[in-house]
């Protein structure tokens, strides 16, 4: 089972950047828009398709992206690096009056610049997809030894 495929598409992904660009560069207005957007769309969209909640963490070795995708089989999830952003797409079967139908979810997550895109790993457990993206060696803090003459 492999989630990560490295692709070099000519154009940026068709999925709109949900967070409105780089994290940390959001203005107050964008933050308020984002807050209302997530409060209103949030998890309720799950059976109809659309977005799903995403968390982003970072320690000195890795950046972690956690996406809530309950009830999705791992085969139906794809995650790929697109021009320095992480694109996550998933589908889930739901019952409808006409039988079963697929609903689709997608998010494009902006990532910090210092991510090592070719060493990305992903795991799916308890309905949560965790993508681990190692930080580039040169971006890690280096200890400089100082010799005193």
């Amino acid at each position, binding site marked *: 089972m492999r989630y990560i495929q490295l692709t070099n598409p000519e154009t940026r992904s068709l999925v709109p950047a949900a*967070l409105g660009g780089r*994290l*940390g560069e959001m203005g*107050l207005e964008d*933050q*308020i828009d984002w*807050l209302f957007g*997530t409060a209103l769309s*949030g*998890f*309720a969209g*799950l*059976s109809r398709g659309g977005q799903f*909640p*995403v*968390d*982003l*963490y*970072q*320690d000195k070795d*890795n*950046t*972690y992206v*956690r996406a*809530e*995708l*309950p*009830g*999705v*089989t791992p085969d139906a999830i794809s995650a790929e690096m697109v021009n320095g952003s992480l694109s996550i797409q998933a589908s889930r079967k739901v019952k409808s009056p006409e039988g079963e139908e697929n609903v689709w979810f997608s998010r494009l997550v902006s990532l*910090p610049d210092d991510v090592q895109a070719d060493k990305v790993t992903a795991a*799916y*457990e*308890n*309905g*949560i997809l*965790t993508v681990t993206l190692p930080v580039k060696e040169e971006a890690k803090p280096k200890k400089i030894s100082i010799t005193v003459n």
Partner: protein
Amino acid sequence: MSLISSLIHPTEAEQHATQRPRYEVEETDLAFGLTVFLPGVAKSGLEITDDGGELHIKGRRAPGIPEAAPALHRESSDAPYELVFSHDSTVDTGKIVAELKDGVLRLSVPKAESAKPRKIAIN
């Protein structure tokens, strides 16, 4: 504390709060089917109890990220899930079947014999 960060970072009192998970209820002639979305909850963190007409579902979210890693951006909540269904004597709580898979809990709550539809023979 600014408005935005007070919304994102819960205060001490709010840390004891629970969140209501998304759920769906279906009804057939024989049973009620409950589907509860509990992302991040493992079997060990799930507790289902029936207490005199109330079916309680509680789920603790397992931490999935090293604790030392600070969050850059959060949209989910670590608060435990809590959902309570009240019911009358028309369900057979002794025969509830529960299954948790990929963060989705499916419960089958059979109706009591007296509540099932009966065909009445006509003489």
